[in-house]
């Protein structure tokens, strides 16, 4: 009788995963170091190391630590958050076209931010009010979509969630247009916020978003096995004893938490949450136990480089990074669609 050495297959798999994780982590660290040298003025690596270990002139420290490093770290966090949220959404909806914004939270957050910008509430510089409103409206949107989709028995069908997301998202988009129309002088501010960018990155933002992103990511990763089981089919998962409704809700909440934490400080950066998990799945497979870490690290690396482009491609100016991720992400995604058509796989 043909048998199978399950143990060795598993061990090989775990070893492979370990290598991937270590490799990507190393790539992230290298990316950070390299991108620290790039900027309006290119600073050599030795100087970077000197500053990071406590030396360097005041201006060098300002540029490297306060400007570049805070921005790179925030970028890595946001990239990781959006990628893991995207992976989670693609898992919950069993749809490789899902993104963190599939339930309309981006429009909701934009509306919240535009209210804060136009009404100027929160007094000082909108550094508090805009992220806060964006964050709150992310969850408000999720709450709306979820409540609309609930059936009598407390069951929440996935298709209804998607439809409700489209509807609620469209509604908030219209509201945002309304805000823009009446915004007068703040129109440009709203438009820039929605394009998504890291030019206002500060360490305090890193401090606030970090725990939320870590928490949400941890929850999602710990539910990897359940996500795997969900992939086979909702019915199958139920038969295997999973409380599908509950797990879906928890994952949606965790994904929304990291998305909200990212969006609050950087606006609507698109395509990261869609493309990174997709690519990760093609490279490391569908098992969420490795897909999640790969998405996290891949998203971080991607965003670090994208933002480096954003702050250097135009002389003297900042290009909102959301524009770059869309400009690069969309053609790449088209390429994925075309090749997917050929192989009909994920």
């Amino acid at each position: 009788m043909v048998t199978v050495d399950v143990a060795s297959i598993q061990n090989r798999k775990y070893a492979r995963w370990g290598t991937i994780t270590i490799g990507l982590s190393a790539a992230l660290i290298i990316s950070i170091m390299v991108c620290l040298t790039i900027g309006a003025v290119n600073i050599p690596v030795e100087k970077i190391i000197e500053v990071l270990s406590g030396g360097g002139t005041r201006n060098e420290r300002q540029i490297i630590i306060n400007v570049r490093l805070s921005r790179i770290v925030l970028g890595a966090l946001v990239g990781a958050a959006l990628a893991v949220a995207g992976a989670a959404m693609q898992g919950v909806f069993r749809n490789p076209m899902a993104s963190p914004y599939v339930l309309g939270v981006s429009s909701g957050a934009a509306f919240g931010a535009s209210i804060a910008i136009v009404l100027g509430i929160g007094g000082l510089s909108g550094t508090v009010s805009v992220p806060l409103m964006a964050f709150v409206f992310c969850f408000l949107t999720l709450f709306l979509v979820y409540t609309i989709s609930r059936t009598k028995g407390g069951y929440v069908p996935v298709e209804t969630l998607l439809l409700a997301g489209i509807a609620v998202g469209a509604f908030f988009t219209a509201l945002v247009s309304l805000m823009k129309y009446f915004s007068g002088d703040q129109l440009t501010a709203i438009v820039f916020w929605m394009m998504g960018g890291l030019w206002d990155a500060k360490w305090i933002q890193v401090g606030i978003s970090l725990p939320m992103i870590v928490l949400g990511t941890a929850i999602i990763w710990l539910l990897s096995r359940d996500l795997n089981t969900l992939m086979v089919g909702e019915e199958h998962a139920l038969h295997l004893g999973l409380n599908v409704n509950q797990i879906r809700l928890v994952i949606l909440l965790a994904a929304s938490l990291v998305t909200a934490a990212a969006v609050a400080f950087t606006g609507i950066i698109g395509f990261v949450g869609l493309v990174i998990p997709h690519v990760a799945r093609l490279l490391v497979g569908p098992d969420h136990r490795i897909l999640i870490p790969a998405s996290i690290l891949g998203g971080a690396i991607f965003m670090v480089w994208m933002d480096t482009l954003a702050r250097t491609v135009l002389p003297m100016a900042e290009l909102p990074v959301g524009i770059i991720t869309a400009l690069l992400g969309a053609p790449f995604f088209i390429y994925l669609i075309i090749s997917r058509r050929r192989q009909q796989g994920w």
Partner: protein
Amino acid sequence: MTVVAVLVVASLAAAMVLLQGTGTDTDDEGTISVVDDRGKTVNFTAAPQRIVSLGSSFTEIIIALDESDRLVGVDYSGAALSGLPEGVVDLGKTSSLSMEALIGLEPDCVIIWNFAMYESLIESMEGLGLKVVAFYPKNVDSTLSTMERMGDLLGSDATELVDGMLARVNAVVAKTANLTDAQRTSVYLELASKGGQTTGNGTLSNELIYLAGGKNIFANGTGYWLANTEEVIMRNPSVIVVENSSARDLQYFKDTYGEVDAVVDDRVYRIDAGTLTTSPRLVDALEDLAYWLQPELFPELAP
């Protein structure tokens, strides 16, 4: 740079002479003729009494000329101006203007910005028999010229107003025209009304900074854009100017740019956003800037 300042003053003077000459074109009895910025000559048999002004700059000029009782309609930007009489209708944004509402006001003159995107709108208006005058002031020079011509249009003498402004401008320029590059104060200007963008050459703000004895750290760029943080730090501005509608304060700039000169010397100033426009108030902006940028030269301008 000094040459430019001299040229500016010279052309202003020349414009004054020329415009004095043409002034109120009363070749025919009671006929008023104005050449707008399209190069088109618009004729009126009498000074218009029912004016729709689609631009806050124009509305401000009309108010400054004390002719605001002839206004019947303004656009949304003019609706908030103080000095606007009761009963003037707010027509909303020009780009989504309702022709019906406009015609309902029975205007005998429509003043509008000569933007490319308003071309078809202007055509429609003229097609409906409305008299349209399109101006596009971009700097100090053209603002004064616009004021002159609007004075002609209204049959009102703008000379006093323009002369007064010119005198104040010249008072500033006289002291700053000869400043060397090193004597000029470097400025970083951030416009909250444009989403936090800075400005380069070719804009009114840039010109005012120059006339006030400063130099815009981003004068080598054009138009408006979001300034790169590192670039600002590297160019080390001595002064930072924001609009008073901006929520950003010294602490914010300290957090963002660290210890650039403007932060260390506590030279972050807030300017009235309404003065950085091509209207009579630009002299206020000029004087504010002059005092902030060259306080030793302009002690009399201290607030």
